[in-house]
């Protein structure tokens, strides 16, 4: 049962389709495990439908319906094109393996990272996985820009509380924290960093929420 949820305004931007893919991924992973937020998004999707209905209407060209019919007649019947295969988790699709088996790069002490930004081409956000070994501590640090994080495994604690699996947290440059991995498992998180990345270089700029 997750306790830290995305803000309503963020869910609205998700429902409107305005979030970048990495941010949408964080929301998706949370939604898949949080029925409370799923029902919030249901309401927001309905809000989108009602907003669309309230707007002006623009007539479409005369022939459009005909060309749509031509299009559906030239393709297989609906039952055959419908998606019926069971869903593979989006994380597995993205990473191709269990999060524990990835080519982690050891950084400082208890912290390992894996930059997966390249899986999201044409984005200007950095996307990273981070691992803090069970019981491990990350040095105190602050953040630059906004960083959205979702806990994929285990849990970490800092002065703001305990963040368990599928908890969602956004940190700003006002937040300084000193996370500790709690519980028996390594704590693995996915973070999206919205600030421009290049300036400080990969080694000086290490990653949130554990290290920077």
């Amino acid at each position, binding site marked *: 049962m997750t306790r830290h*949820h995305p*803000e*309503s*305004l963020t*869910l*609205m*931007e*998700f*429902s*409107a*389709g*305005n979030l970048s*893919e990495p941010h*949408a*991924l964080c929301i*998706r992973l949370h939604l898949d495990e949080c*029925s409370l937020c*799923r*029902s*919030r998004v*249901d*309401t*927001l*999707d*309905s*809000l*989108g*439908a*009602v*907003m*669309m*209905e*309230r*707007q*002006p*209407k*623009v*007539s*479409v*060209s005369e022939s*459009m*319906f005909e060309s*749509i*019919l031509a*299009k*559906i007649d030239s*393709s297989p019947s*609906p*039952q055959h094109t*419908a*998606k019926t295969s069971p*869903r593979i988790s*989006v994380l597995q*699709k*993205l990473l191709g393996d269990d999060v524990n088996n990835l080519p982690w790069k050891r950084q400082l002490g208890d912290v390992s990272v894996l930059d997966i930004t*390249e*899986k*999201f*081409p*044409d984005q200007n956000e950095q996307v990273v996985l981070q691992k803090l070994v069970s019981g491990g501590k990350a040095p105190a640090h602050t953040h630059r820009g906004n960083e959205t994080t979702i806990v994929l495994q285990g849990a970490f604690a800092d002065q703001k509380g305990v963040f368990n699996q599928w908890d969602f947290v956004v940190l700003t440059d006002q937040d300084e924290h000193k996370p500790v991995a709690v519980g028996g498992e390594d704590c693995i998180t996915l973070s999206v960093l919205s600030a421009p990345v290049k300036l400080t270089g990969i080694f000086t700029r290490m990653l949130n929420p554990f290290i920077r």
Partner: protein
Amino acid sequence: MTTLEQKPTRGEGRKDPWSQLLVKVGKSQDRQAYHALFEHFAPQLKYYAMANGMASHAEELVQEVFVSIWRRACLYDWQKAAASTWIFTIARNQRIDMLRKMRRTSAEMQVETEDLWQIPGEDENEPVTSLHRLMSERRVRESLRHLPEEQITVIAKVYMEQKSHQMVANELNIPLGTVKSRVRLALNKLKVILQDQNV
């Protein structure tokens, strides 16, 4: 007309006319029903495409959405979403998809739009929370009637014009905080805001 109305359930009365039509398309490929949906939704969808900067692709978007409606109608479950909500999410995803494809340079897309943005009722195995969902749509419509226009304007820009809260603030020349508080007031009425959320 078709067999699907045979078994009235407790929630049957809640099914709106568009959802009934969509069910017919799904169950029996009813082209008349499909055409009625087209007449009603296509002009809305075209405005949607134009409002969010896809003017030159507006008709293409409407077409793609309708082809997709036809193909997926068999997956539509009126107990999980009203037709208008279902169609809105298809349009939203189609727009995201088209923009992704236009932007795409060389790299392959690893994650598909629908891995991230789902269509309500598909790929879901949860116990039916249908009455809750349908009420949510009725409640949204009802609540909007009582919202001040300034709140609706802000929300419309987010949904229809794909503007961030910051962009809305710039355009209306009001502080970002004002935009956010208008949205929060509205979402509070819609009960989307969590009681204990410290925002």
